[in-house]
């Protein structure tokens, strides 16, 4: 009954379970893979420009002219990383991205660092993008402000359920906002450029405001600010590795499709990011971290996001395109979390398969997705959102460190990979291609490594230290899990000589009262033909013992009944003690304890029965050489529950015919 009640909502939410053979039907064509894997990098153009401007505005208006250069740096980096990851897709079609690459080329420790960095960053991606999306919603409807955390948590829950339904279905659901966002940003950028070309360039609502510098801009300070802006802009790169992690989810030819998707994503992201940054510069968008820095702002001036200001400037505030762009931006920001929902479970499943995470992560659920990974990811991200009050500005500081750690490691791994390939290849055309690939990956490794240092330096005090502390912890946890699995595996390895047959089996049937379940347990124990058979009872009171003794001799049972004294009235202790003494007779003897148990159909009945049996069983399981056999007795309520359960009705019907014989 419990099952049926739980099943109905699950069926509604998640859908019908799929057979293993239907795996091929869940593979993704390119047009669906793009929204599934790329919503994160595409969405980050919605805030990457803003983050750059925010960091630069600390140095006042003059620094904003640098936004071109910072933007160009980010675009270049994005192109290099995309080019490098295209190589990974081809070289490692099994998925796993940074983890697989560094495992194959750099060894276990490097791969685990990459994996822990990625795991942390996936969690961060979910938290940051959902928080950012909610921030957009809240700025549209300020009344929702106090419920931001609640909204964010329910959004995470919705995305998790969508993903539990399966990769393909979530791709379909996420396609509209993703493509809508891409199309609307292109229309906006194009319209803005056309207007600029015809002489009346769009002007943002904040164009007239000046920004008061809160940081010095002399010499090194300016460089530092520019670097910080660059580090902030690098949020645009998160999620690139998701494609290379998810190569197995693509339709064949998998590697080629994945690489093509990656290219399309890179081109889209670069043009959108470049367009928005350029337009922001044309329209003179001025924003600041602290509204007090804005000079000349009217009282109660609410800073709008860069995208909102741009669309307002191009299409006019309150126009239909303005609202469309806002809606698509909010939607894609929330859906960006989806990229992590595809990356995290796959990575966790690979780690689980290799024994670095609990093995359950490697198991596919009803809909052929790695449900455990999805559930854990949503729980962790939810906890993070709750802890940080759904504040984007606080969360974003923890972001992208993990990504760049894994970028750097995977690129270095690829460089080594090509070096190894080079040694094996003799064909000159092939060698040229490998040299080219290696050069791409080398540039990628050096650049991402540099960016990692920059990001660490500029963000460390702003909260990035949390990641720097967490990363080794996750790393050590995975090492410990692996050590445990290895130790257990070594322990369980069958020895040369195998397992000896037990020389004798001493059966003990636990008796509390003489009733049908006890008699059945006795009958069953006798039928197993043990070497010795004893019925065991604990005398908690003299009257009970006397009654049992009398009934036992009246029934004339052919089994000796041992009654144990229990000076302290507990049942478990004397039984354990007795079992221990039987055991010591010979090392190869096995004691088999038969415990009659009630099976009940209602949860509250569970509280009324079996308490001492369960306690005893739990303790007996720790004893070496002791087997515990449950002899269940289905009470009437359990039989009724069995009949109510749809998937067990056949079994129930079959049993009902013979239930009288038991």
């Amino acid at each position, binding site marked *: 009954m419990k099952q049926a009640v739980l099943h109905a909502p699950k069926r509604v939410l998640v859908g019908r379970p799929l057979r293993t053979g239907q795996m091929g039907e869940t593979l993704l064509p390119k047009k669906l893979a793009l929204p599934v894997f790329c919503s994160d990098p595409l969405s980050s153009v919605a805030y990457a420009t803003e983050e750059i401007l925010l960091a630069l505005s600390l140095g006042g208006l003059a620094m904003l002219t640098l936004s071109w250069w910072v933007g160009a740096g980010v675009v270049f980096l994005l192109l290099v990383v995309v080019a490098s990851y295209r190589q990974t897709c081809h070289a490692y079609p099994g998925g796993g991205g940074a983890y697989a690459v560094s495992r194959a080329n750099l060894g276990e420790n490097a791969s685990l660092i990459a994996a822990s960095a990625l795991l942390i960053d996936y969690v961060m991606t979910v938290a940051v993008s959902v928080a950012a999306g909610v921030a957009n919603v809240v700025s549209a409807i300020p009344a929702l402000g106090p419920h931001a955390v609640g909204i964010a948590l329910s959004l995470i829950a919705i995305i998790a359920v969508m993903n539990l339904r399966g990769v393909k279905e979530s791709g379909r659901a996420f396609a509209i906002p993703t493509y809508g966002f891409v199309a609307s940003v292109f229309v906006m950028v194009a319209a803005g450029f056309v207007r600029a070309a015809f002489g009346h360039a769009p002007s943002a609502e904040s164009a007239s405001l000046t920004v008061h510098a809160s940081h010095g801009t002399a010499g090194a300070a300016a460089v530092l600010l520019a670097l910080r802006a660059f580090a902030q802009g690098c949020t645009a790169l998160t999620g690139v590795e998701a494609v290379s992690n998810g190569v197995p989810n693509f339709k064949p030819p998998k590697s080629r499709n994945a690489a093509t998707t990656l290219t399309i994503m890179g081109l889209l992201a670069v043009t959108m990011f470049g367009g928005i940054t350029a337009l922001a510069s044309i329209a003179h968008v001025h924003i600041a971290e602290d509204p007090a820095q804005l000079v000349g702002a009217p009282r109660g001036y609410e800073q709008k996001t860069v995208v909102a200001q741009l669309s307002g400037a191009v299409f006019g505030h309150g126009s239909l395109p303005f609202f469309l762009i806002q809606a698509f931006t909010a939607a894609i920001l929330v859906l960006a979390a989806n990229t992590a929902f595809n990356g995290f479970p796959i990575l966790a499943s690979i780690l689980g398969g290799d024994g670095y995470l609990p093995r359950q992560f490697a198991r596919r659920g009803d809909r052929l997705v790695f449900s455990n990974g999805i559930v854990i990811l949503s729980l962790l991200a939810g906890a993070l959102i709750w802890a940080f009050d759904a504040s984007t500005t606080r969360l974003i500081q923890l972001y992208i460190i993990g990504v760049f750690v894994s970028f750097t490691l995977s690129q270095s791994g690829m460089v080594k990979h090509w070096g190894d390939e080079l040694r094996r290849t003799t064909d000159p055309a092939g060698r040229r291609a490998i040299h080219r690939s290696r050069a791409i990956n080398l540039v990628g490794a050096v650049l991402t490594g540099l960016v990692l240092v920059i990001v660490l330096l500029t963000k460390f005090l702003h909260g990035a230290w949390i990641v720097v502390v967490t990363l080794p912890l996750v790393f050590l946890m995975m090492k410990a899990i692996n050590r445990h699995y290895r130790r257990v595996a070594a322990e369980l390895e069958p020895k040369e000589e195998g397992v000896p047959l037990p020389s004798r089996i001493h059966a003990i049937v636990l008796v509390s009262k003489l009733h049908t379940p006890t008699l059945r347990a006795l009958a069953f124990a006798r039928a197993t033909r043990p070497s010795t058979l*004893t019925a065991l009872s604990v*005398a908690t009171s*003299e009257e009970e*013992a*006397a009654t049992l*003794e009398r009934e*036992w*001799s009246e029934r*004339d*049972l*052919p*089994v*000796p*009944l*041992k*009654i*144990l*004294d*229990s*000076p*302290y009235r507990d049942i478990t*202790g004397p039984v354990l*003690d*007795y079992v*221990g*003494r039987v055991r*010591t*007779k010979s090392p190869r003897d096995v004691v088999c304890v038969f415990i009659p148990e009630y099976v009940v159909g209602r949860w509250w009945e569970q509280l009324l029965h079996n308490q001492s049996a369960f306690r005893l069983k739990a303790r007996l399981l720790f004893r070496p050489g002791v087997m515990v056999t449950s002899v269940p007795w289905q009470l009437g309520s359990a039989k009724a529950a069995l009949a109510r359960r749809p998937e067990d009705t056949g079994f129930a019907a079959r049993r009902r015919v013979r239930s009288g014989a038991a």
Partner: protein
Amino acid sequence: MDDVPDTGDEDSGSRGLRGFLRRLTSSKAELEAQELQKTSGSEGATPIKACAARRRACVAGTLRTVTLRPRGGAPALEAELYDGSDVIDLVWLGRRRIAGIEPGRLVRAEGLVSVQDGRKVMFNPRYELRGSA
């Protein structure tokens, strides 16, 4: 019999938290053993641990288990006497039940000690019921 708790030197080699915990958890069994040894001493009986095979001895303790043999085989009543130092099986041949021989009863028994399968056994002992333990 290694299941008999050692009462003499329970804290030797078990200091620290672990030793403290062990003393806490096993205290019930040790408590019982101590009490029983005291009563068996006051009965003027030999500790079972000190009983040698093929000697007459007088032991006193509580009956830890009483076994009811099924009808059919040779009738015998079996009980296990525990005095805090060791256990001994008391077997009354030809009897199926003896009023008063029940678990928890304090008993004083006298007879010839023999050893079977490493267990001490006393056949047809003279016994006195000394009330409940």
